[in-house]
Structures are given as structure tokens and as C-alpha cells.
């Protein structure tokens, strides 16, 4: 699953730690999501979408065959 988390975070000039604190996760988790190494759970995806005021589909893109 691909996502725009890094871009969205950069647009707001947030650090990974800022975002991690807002989402109640570790900085390592934010980094793993940004680098597509970890797919967040649905509750966390909703939390991210609420934080950025965007729909989940605008942030995450499911890619078949991966």
C-alpha cells in the first residue's frame, strides 16, 4: 500500500516526531508507514485521515499485486 504521508507531513512542516505524537505512535512507526514498510490498522488510518482532514483514499492507495 502506497501513501502520501511524507508529502502531507512536509507540507505542514511537521517532523516525524510531531506526527508520531499526534497519532500516539512511535516515530519509528511513522517512518515505517512513510516508507511503505508497515501498513497501518484501520483505526490508525482513520486517525491519520482526521488529522490531515482528508479521506483515507486521498492518503492511502491500495496497489494490487504487492
Amino acid at each position, binding site marked *: 500500500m502506497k501513501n502520501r504521508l511524507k508529502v502531507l507531513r512536509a507540507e*505542514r512542516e511537521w517532523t516525524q516526531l*510531531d506526527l508520531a505524537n*499526534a497519532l500516539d*505512535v*512511535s516515530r519509528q512507526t511513522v517512518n*515505517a508507514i512513510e516508507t511503505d*514498510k*508497515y501498513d497501518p*490498522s484501520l483505526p490508525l488510518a482513520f486517525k491519520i485521515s482526521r488529522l490531515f482532514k482528508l479521506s483515507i483514499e486521498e492518503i492511502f492507495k491500495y496497489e494490487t499485486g504487492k
Partner: protein
Amino acid sequence: MNESKIQTGEWSLQTRKSTIHLAKWTALWVLTMVLATFGSLLLWESTLLTIIAILINLSVGIGMIVSNIHHLKTTDEMMQKVQLEAMGISLGVGIVGGLSYSLLDTTNLISFNAEISHVVMLFALAYLVAVFAGLRKLQ
């Protein structure tokens, strides 16, 4: 940082607190283990005191387990996933490795006795390696 300034997480504070809490319970458990092991050898000769020391060790051990469960619940979902995989691997390695080790002893293929402490060390090492590998994979 612009726009709505993000609040610093209460979560990281909670995780730190639960980690320290778990470390204290673990240290206490190790101390009671030392007391129960060496107390009867070096400090007293009473069987009753030995039983009490073992019961204290058991009680503190239960406290440590509860503290560990609480700690795992305060970690975030990715760490929970890493921990779950590590626990699965260490349980598998511990059981399979431990039973094979026991077989080596019962079939007299090794000259020394297969001690439970060796299996505990195997569990711990497998767990540490699995956590490290799990975190490396997600970096």
C-alpha cells in the same frame, strides 16, 4: 511547525512510565529469585523460610507478568506486531529446541544434564534476536 500545532503525546510518556514500571518489576523478580535460590544455601536452614521465599518469588513473578501485559498494551500497533512475532518465534524455538535438548539428555548423547536454565536462555536469546530482526525489517 505551522497550522494547528500538534500536541506532544501523552502516549510516549505513558509508554516510558510502563517501561520503567516493568523494569522495576523485573529487577524485583530477579532479586526474589536470587533470594529464593541462595537464601537456603547461605542465609538460613529453615524449610519454611525457603517456601516463603519461593512464594514471594512466585507472587512477584505474577506481578511482573501483569506489568508486562500492561506494558505491551501501551506500545503502539507496530511494536505490538513486532512483539507478537518475536514471542511466537521464541515460543517455537524454546519448545522445539528445548525438547530436542531434552532428548539429547535422555538418550545420553550429551554427558551433562539438560538444565531448564539453558532453555530459558534459549528463549531469551531467540526473543531478543526476533525483536531486533523485526525492528530492522521495518526500518
